[in-house]
């Protein structure tokens, strides 16, 4: 305590205090924001009549304002007849729907419905017309014996990297739209995004990328996500821009510090 009291007027005391404060608030925020994350197993793909009727109730209460009763669509939202369960599961499961506000595209946010409710909504919308279903677990299994990561990488670079960046770090589209980064997106949601083409994404139907192809892409994404960059900190995997920024700030900054030090006792 005595040392603490003695050093309280040290030139770095303010800096230390600031760092401690930031660490404390940041840590508390991180703790608070992960506590409410829902954890539940994926429900099966067959829906009961009970699910459908519960789903309809939820839909009428939360979605019909924009998508209309019976999901026929209004001026504010498109019809959902025929979009399929996969689309609902993706949009609601990633928190994009219900939309926070009208904008260039729906943004990801904490999901507003739990897994059961999401499944009920999916069941209801799927009952209105045929569409892509929630994928079967077999196609989400990245450890499957037929998985070829290198092929998945090639498919990703040819089909996805132009918007999502080669390292899946995301990228810009026109007029405020963007392709999000793909880290921390579940296997199921990646699959559903490919199958249904949410927001500005094109649809990669089974004729275009077979379910096995999609599984390869997912396996590739999960591989590069799980393995840290071999070269050290990846600087956001954004390529030459972040590298340039880094050399101008950190690189030159450190060297200027040394320069000032070397010439500090000069004539």
């Amino acid at each position, binding site marked *: 305590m005595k040392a603490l009291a003695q050093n309280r007027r040290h030139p770095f005391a303010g800096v230390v205090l600031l760092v401690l404060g930031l660490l404390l608030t940041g840590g508390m925020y991180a703790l608070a924001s992960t506590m409410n994350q829902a954890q539940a197993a994926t429900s099966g793909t067959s829906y009961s009549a009970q699910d459908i009727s519960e789903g309809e109730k939820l839909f009428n209460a939360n979605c019909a304002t924009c998508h209309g009763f019976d999901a026929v669509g209004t001026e504010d939202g498109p019809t959902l007849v025929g979009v399929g369960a996969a689309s609902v599961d993706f949009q609601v499961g990633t928190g994009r729907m219900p939309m926070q506000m009208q904008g260039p595209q729906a943004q990801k946010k904490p999901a507003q419905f739990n897994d059961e409710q999401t499944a009920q909504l999916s069941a209801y919308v799927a009952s209105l017309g045929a569409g892509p279903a929630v994928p079967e677990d077999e196609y989400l299994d990245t450890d499957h014996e037929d998985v070829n990561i290198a092929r998945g990488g090639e498919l990703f670079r040819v089909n996805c990297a132009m918007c999502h960046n080669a390292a899946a770090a995301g990228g810009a589209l026109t007029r405020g739209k963007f392709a999000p980064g793909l880290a921390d997106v579940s296997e199921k949601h990646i699959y559903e995004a490919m199958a249904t083409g949410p927001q500005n994404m094109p649809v990669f139907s089974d004729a275009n990328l077979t379910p096995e192809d999609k599984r390869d892409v997912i396996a590739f994404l999960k591989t590069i996500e799980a393995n840290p960059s071999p070269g050290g900190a990846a600087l956001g995997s954004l390529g030459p821009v972040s590298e340039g920024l880094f050399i*101008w700030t950190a690189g030159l900054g450190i060297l200027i510090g040394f320069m000032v030090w070397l010439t500090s006792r000069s004539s």
Partner: protein
Amino acid sequence: MSTTTEYSAATRTGRISNFVDTRMGVSPMVKEFGRKIFPDHWSFMFGEVALYSFVILLLSGTFLTFFFDPSMAHTTYEGSYKPLYGLEMSVAYASSLDISFDIRGGLFMRQVHHWAALLFVAAMSVHMLRVFFTGAFRRPRELNWVVGCLLLLAGLAAGFTGYSLPDDVLSGNGLRIIDGILKAIPVVGSYISMFLFGGEFPGYAVIGRLYVLHILIVPAAILLLIVVHLFMVVVHKHTQYPGPGRTNDNVVGYPVGPVYAAKAGGFFFIVFGVISLLAGFFTINAIWNYGPYDPSPVQAGTQPDWYIGWFDGALRLMPGVLGDFSFKWDIPFPWGVNSIPLGVLLPMIPVGILMVGMIVWPWIERWVTRDDREHHLLDRPRNAPFRTAAGVAGIIFYCVMWAAASSDLIATHFHMSLNDVLYILRFLYFAGPIIGFIVTRRICLALQRKDREIALHGREAGVIEMTPAGEFRERHEHLSDYELYRLVGFENRRPVPAQPGKDGKVSGLEKQRAKLNKWFYEERVEPVTRDELTAARAHGHHDAVEADHGAHGIDR
């Protein structure tokens, strides 16, 4: 028998030195060079950083050449990196991957090489800015400024040829843009492109050719230019900041031996250490992400290395159409229609102007100011408001293009529309340099006025005193003569009106020059004269006596 006995040293070191000296006559050289004085200031060390980065580039680059194979032949990758295993790719890319994953220390050396390349050009750029803003390019150093400009351009060439070698999608896209720019040149463009790529892009030749340029011609040119550059530094002697005892006829500082040599030698290892730390902890150019080059995909976040960014940005800023007006002109010729893609050609014009303007600036300034004297004392940037403002305008112009190269990342990271980012940058492209020029000039003049104020009346001490008569006044602390020198000891530049030529007439060009010159100097702050200073001091002293406060620090 000779009457003089040969000198024999007492120690072993002495004998070895004597052996070398009697055969090569080194001691006069060491004596001359070792006593060479260099002034000490941190801002003088950016050139050193560039030099050391270049040495590191040579060392790490040599390592890489042992393992890199610049062949565009097809091969199947069977190395350690699983996400690319079994893919068909060029030998160049496969060997780059092998360097990264299968050769001990290879990835580290690749990253050392690449970080050092970024630092090399960055340090050169900052060094150039330092030289520009302090006026160190003036006579007699104009030619060395040109050599420096050529070094910067050679650095860009070295960087770009190296960036293109790994043959991943990123580097291939860079080459594709070069191919596009070449093909945009009217009439001869497609021939030049075919010549460079040995056929239609991408062909099988370009990497081998770029490799030769990258490891032979360009480094040799840089090395030669560095030798000339340093030779001229020795001939001209180093410039120095103005200060008491520093004149145009002397250099105040440390001799090379031993102090400066030790500092410089140590600094080399500091630079090497910093680059090694960067290379050890931070990924650069993750070629394994980009995949083998294939002309069809382009990836989000495809950018050149930072120093080529402004070319890329200039292209991004240029609209392809403006309303109904297309920048692609189809011109019918007897042999068919030739297209002139102005959307690609026009952006290259300001880039060229900026480069040429940079090279010829010493002559522009010499012509406008009619100042052809030798200068070994540097300017404080504020004391040359016009030059400083012009430099800032140039920096802003460059930076707008530079920022435009990362328009997509600005859009995603600041949650803006990509289109809006481009509109804002297009506006700044034209307005930014003008605003920057005006604001910088005002700031420089204001700083000069502040200097003048401080020189005449001292610093406001923040202490309010009450005289016995009840009058309040603030105490002013006068500067020491040493501090004062910096504020008053600068050159008073006056406009030079139009001069008649040899035929006794004032030529039109001379009138233009005079107009520019007036623009340079029409607003200026004169340095404090001796009389003004004496008068101000007498006044201050008078006040102090009145106040009857002989406190230390007030007047003398």
